[in-house]
C-alpha cells in the first residue's frame, strides 16, 4: 500500500532500537535490518562500527516498511531513497511503506553532515551506497532463509518481486513467510550489489509516492495537525533585532471574540485563540511598546561597510596555488572588481509553525523539520526537560530550503506552550515569517585577476567576507577560520588557473541571524566566479563559452556540460536588440552543471528571463523525472533571487513583509526550462540546489550581453538597465 501521506510513527524514545537489532527481530516479529553508514564507521571507534542508521522492516505479513532518515520537502526523497532499497531488495515501490525516522542523532545521522538533517543536496549522495547495501543484505538473508527451508544451495535460488523463487522446481516463498527465519540468520558482511545493467527501478521515472495526498488536500503538513483541543496562537516578535517587550496593553485584544489568552515573553507577545482569525485580530488590537535595544539604528549600509572593510584585511586562506602576487606583477592586463549579494529570506510557502503540548514533565511537538534531533534538543533545553521527555512528530514540509534546518520556531512555540493549558499551534503570519527569518548571509567579494598576452588568466585572487552559517549551526565544521560551505564554489574551480589564491573573512552581521538557504555558499560564490570569468572573457575580447572552454582541458566532465548547454541553447545565434544570452558553469554539490540563460531587458530596465537551457552531469540518475523537476525548481528559486530577492534592514527592522514587498517569480514571468542530462555511471551527485546557484550568474551575464551593463550586485536593479 502506498500511503497518500506519511505520518510519524509513534516515537519510541524509550526503546533502544539497537537493543533489538542484536536479535534482528522487529517488533511484532519479522526481519529488521539496520545499516551502518560510512561516516559513523570511519570516524567512530572501530568496535562501534555497526552504528545503525536507517531501517528496513519486513513484517510476517510481507509488508516492507522503510524508516526514512531524510525528510520530504518537495525534492522527491520519499521516492528516490526507497527506489535504492527496493532495487536491491527486489520489491516494487508499491510494496513499501514509509515512516519518518524519530529523532535520534545516533541512529539517523546524515552521513555527509554527521547530524540528523536533510540539506546540502546530499540525501542521495549519502544514501547511494548504504541504502543499496541495506537492500542487498536483506535480500541475501531472505534468499538464504528460503534455500535453508528447501535444503537447497542459495545460489540456485533468486529473489524476485517480493519473493524467493527456485526456478527449476517452481517453488516460491513470499518475503513475509521468510521474515522470521531470515531474522535468525547472521548478517552477511559482504553483499554483492546489482550492476547498473541489471537495474530495473533506478533510472526509471518512478511516480512520486507522496503526490496523491498533495493533490486532494489530505496530505498533512506541520501546519495542519490538530491534536484534540488545540488552540491557535500567532505572535509578534520584537520588530527590531534583539529588542524586548517594554509594556503590553492587552485590554482590547482580550475583548476580541475567540481570544483566550495573551502570552507575554521577554521579546515577543502571543495571542492564543480558538482560530487564527481571532488570534490575528487580537494581535492587531495589542498595544505593545518595545525596548528596541542595541540595534535600533542598524541598517544594511552599516553591514556592507563592515564587510567591505574586512575584505581589505587578511582572511583565512581557503586555497592557494602557485604565486599569485608574482604572476599579477608581470601580467599584461589586470582586472579588478567587487561583488555583493544581499540578505535573503526563505519564504517557504508554508509559513513557520509549530504545535506544542507542554505537560508537567514532558512535551509533545508536531512540526515539519529538516533536523528533528535538533528540534528535540533545543526544545528540551527551552523546556528544561531531558531530550527523551520531548516527543517530536515530524510531518511533511511545505518547503524547507534550509529554513527548517533551524529550531528557533520550535523553541518559540515551547516558550508559548509553557503558559498554555493544552496543545497550542503557533502559526506565524507571513509578515513574521519574512521579518523574523534567519537570512541567507550578505557577502562582499573583492576579486582580481591578471591575463597574459593571449588573454588567459595567469592569476586569480579573491577575498570575501560574510557570515559563516556552519560556525553557529555545527561549530566543529568551522575550523581555522574556514568552513566548507562558505567556500564551496569559490575554490576548486573547474578552470585551469595556475596561480590562485582565495581567502575568507568571517564577519557576523550585528543582530541579524543568518542561516542556510538553498545552495548557501555556492549561491554567492558561483555568482561571483562565473560573473568574473565573464569579465575576463570580455577583457580578453573572447566569446564567453570559447574562453571558458580554453581553460577546461583538465576537466572533461565540465567541458561536456558546457558544450551540451551551448549547443542546445543555440549559442552564437543572433538575437534581437536588448536580448542576450549568458552562460555559467559550476561543479558544486558533486554535480557538474552548465546553464545558458536568455534574457530580455525592457526599455524601463525590467528583466525577463525567457529561456534557460541547462546541462547536468550528476552521475548515475536514480529518477530522471526528479532530476528534471529539481532543476526546474532550483532555476525558479535562483531566478527569483536574481530578479527580485533582497532583504534590507533599516532602523533595526527588516523592511520587507509579505509577497508584495518580497516578490517571488510567478507563472507569467517564469522562463521556459530545458534540462539535458549527460549520462554517467559515476555515483549520484546533488540536485536540489545546483540549479539555484548556476542561474544567477547566467542571468547576470545575459544582462551584460543584452545591455553592456555588468551587474556586480544582486538583485538586478532596473534603474541601472534603462535604455
Amino acid at each position, binding site marked *: 500500500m502506498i500511503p497518500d501521506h506519511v505520518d510519524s510513527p509513534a516515537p519510541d524514545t524509550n526503546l533502544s532500537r539497537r537493543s533489538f537489532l542484536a536479535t534482528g527481530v522487529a517488533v511484532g516479529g519479522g526481519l529488521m535490518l539496520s545499516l551502518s553508514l560510512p561516516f559513523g564507521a570511519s570516524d567512530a571507534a572501530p568496535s562501534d562500527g555497526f552504528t545503525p542508521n536507517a531501517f528496513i522492516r519486513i513484517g510476517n505479513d510481507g509488508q516492507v516498511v522503510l524508516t526514512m532518515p531524510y525528510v520530504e*520537502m*518537495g*525534492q*522527491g526523497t520519499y521516492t528516490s531513497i526507497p527506489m535504492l532499497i527496493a532495487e536491491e531488495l527486489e520489491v516494487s515501490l508499491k510494496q513499501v511503506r514509509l515512516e519518518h525516522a524519530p529523532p535520534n542523532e545516533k541512529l539517523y545521522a546524515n552521513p555527509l553532515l554527521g547530524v540528523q538533517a536533510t540539506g546540502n543536496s546530499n540525501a542521495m549522495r549519502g544514501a547511494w551506497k548504504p541504502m543499496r547495501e541495506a537492500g542487498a543484505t536483506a535480500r541475501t538473508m531472505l534468499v538464504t532463509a528460503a534455500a535453508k527451508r528447501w535444503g537447497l544451495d542459495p545460489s540456485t535460488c533468486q529473489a524476485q518481486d517480493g519473493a524467493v523463487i527456485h526456478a527449476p522446481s517452481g517453488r516460491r516463498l513470499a518475503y513475509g513467510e521468510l521474515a522470521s527465519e531470515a531474522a535468525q540468520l547472521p548478517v552477511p558482511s559482504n553483499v554483492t550489489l546489482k550492476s547498473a545493467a541489471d537495474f530495473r527501478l533506478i533510472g526509471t*521515472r518512478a*511516480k512520486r509516492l507522496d*503526490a*496523491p*495526498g*498533495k*493533490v*486532494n*488536500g*489530505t*496530505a*498533512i503538513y506541520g*501546519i*495542519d495537525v*490538530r491534536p484534540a483541543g488545540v488552540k491557535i496562537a500567532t505572535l509578534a516578535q520584537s520588530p527590531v533585532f534583539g529588542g524586548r517587550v517594554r509594556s503590553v496593553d492587552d485590554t482590547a485584544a482580550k475583548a476580541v*471574540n*475567540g481570544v483566550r489568552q495573551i502570552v507575554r515573553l521577554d521579546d515577543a507577545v502571543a495571542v492564543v485563540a*480558538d*482560530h*487564527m*482569525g*481571532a488570534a*490575528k*485580530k487580537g494581535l492587531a488590537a495589542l498595544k505593545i511598546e518595545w525596548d528596541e535595544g542595541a540595534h535600533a539604528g542598524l541598517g544594511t549600509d552599516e553591514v556592507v561597510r563592515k564587510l567591505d572593510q574586512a575584505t581589505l584585511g587578511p582572511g583565512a586562506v581557503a586555497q592557494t596555488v602557485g604565486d599569485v602576487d608574482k604572476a599579477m606583477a608581470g601580467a599584461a592586463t589586470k582586472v579588478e572588481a567587487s561583488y555583493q549579494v544581499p540578505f535573503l529570506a526563505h519564504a*517557504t*510557502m*508554508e*509559513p513557520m509553525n509549530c504545535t506544542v503540548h507542554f505537560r508537567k514533565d514532558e512535551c509533545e511537538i508536531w512540526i515539519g523539520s529538516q533536523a528533528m534531533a535538533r528540534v528535540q534538543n533545543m526544545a528540551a533545553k527551552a523546556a528544561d526537560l531531558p531530550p527523551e521527555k520531548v516527543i517530536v512528530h515530524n510531518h*511533511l*514540509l*511545505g*518547503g*524547507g*530550503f534550509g529554513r527548517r534546518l533551524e529550531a528557533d520556531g520550535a523553541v518559540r512555540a515551547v516558550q508559548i506552550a509553557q503558559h498554555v493549558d493544552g496543545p497550542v499551534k503557533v*502559526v506565524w*503570519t*507571513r509578515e513574521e515569517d519574512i521579518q523574523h527569518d534567519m537570512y541567507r548571509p550578505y557577502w562582499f567579494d573583492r576579486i582580481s585577476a591578471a591575463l597574459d598576452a593571449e588573454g588567459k588568466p595567469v592569476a586569480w585572487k579573491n577575498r570575501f567576507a560574510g557570515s559563516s552559517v556552519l560556525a553557529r549551526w555545527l561549530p566543529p565544521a568551522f575550523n581555522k577560520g574556514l568552513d566548507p560551505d562558505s567556500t564551496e564554489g569559490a575554490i576548486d574551480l573547474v578552470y585551469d588557473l595556475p596561480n590562485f589564491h582565495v581567502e575568507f573573512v568571517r564577519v557576523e552581521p550585528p543582530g541579524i541571524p543568518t542561516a542556510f538557504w538553498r545552495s548557501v555558499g555556492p549561491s554567492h560564490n558561483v555568482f561571483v566566479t562565473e560573473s568574473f570569468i565573464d569579465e575576463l572573457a570580455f577583457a580578453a575580447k573572447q566569446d564567453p563559452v570559447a574562453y571558458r572552454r580554453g581553460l577546461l582541458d583538465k576537466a572533461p566532465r565540465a567541458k561536456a556540460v558546457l558544450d551540451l548547454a551551448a549547443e542546445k541553447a543555440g549559442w552564437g545565434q543572433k538575437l534581437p536588440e536588448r536580448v542576450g544570452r549568458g552562460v555559467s558553469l559550476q561543479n558544486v554539490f558533486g554535480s557538474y552543471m552548465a546553464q545558458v540563460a536568455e534574457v530580455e531587458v525592457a526599455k524601463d530596465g525590467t528583466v525577463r528571463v525567457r529561456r534557460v537551457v541547462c546541462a547536468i552531469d550528476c552521475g548515475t540518475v536514480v529518477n530522471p*523525472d526528479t532530476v528534471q*523537476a529539481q532543476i*526546474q*525548481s*532550483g532555476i*525558479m*528559486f535562483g*531566478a*527569483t533571487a536574481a530578479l527580485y530577492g533582497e532583504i534590507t534592514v533599516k532602523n533595526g527592522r527588516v523592511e520587507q513583509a*509579505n*509577497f*508584495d514587498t518580497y516578490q*517571488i517569480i*510567478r*507563472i*507569467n514571468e*517564469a522562463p*521556459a*526550462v530545458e534540462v539535458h542530462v549527460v549520462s554517467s555511471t559515476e555515483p549520484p551527485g546533488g540536485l536540489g540546489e545546483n540549479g539555484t546557484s548556476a542561474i544567477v550568474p547566467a542571468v547576470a551575464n545575459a544582462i551584460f550581453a543584452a545591455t553592456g551593463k555588468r551587474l556586480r550586485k544582486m538583485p538586478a536593479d532596473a534603474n541601472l538597465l534603462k535604455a
Partner: protein
Amino acid sequence: MAFTININGTSHSVDVDGDTSLLWVLRDVLGMTGTKFGCGMALCGACTVHIDGAATRSCITSVDSLDKSMVTTIEAIGASPAGAKIQKAWLDHEVVQCGYCQSGQIMSASALLASNPRPTDADIDDAMSGNICRCGTYVRIREAIKLAAQSSKEG
C-alpha cells in the same frame, strides 16, 4: 454570531465574528486543512476555493459575505469534471514538489478549465499568476493544464 455556510454541498453552522475569513473557518473551525494559508493578503493563492464556481481567495473572504453561496474546496474538487481532470493531469505529469501551494493551484486551474476548455498560454498566465509556487513548478503546471485540456477534447 452564528452563520450557516454551504461547503462542498453540506451546510455547517459556525459561531464566529462575521468578519472572520473563510480560510480560518475552514481550517481551524471545521478542520478542513486542505485549503492552505500562505500570505493572508490575496497575494499567493494558497487559500483558493471556489465560490459559486469562481476561484476566490478565502483569506480575504469574510464569512458574512457568503450568504447562500456554494463553497467548494480542494477536498471536493475531484467530484467536478474539470477538477478530476486537473487532479489526474497533476499526477500524470508529476507537478507537485513540496505540494503546499498545490491545493490553490488546482483550484485555480480547475476554475479555468471549467470556464475555458481550451486555454491559451495567455489565459493560463491570467488565471494562474495569482498563485505562487515557491518550489517553482510552473513549467509543469502549464503543461498539466494543457494536458487536462487535451483530455477534455478527447473525452
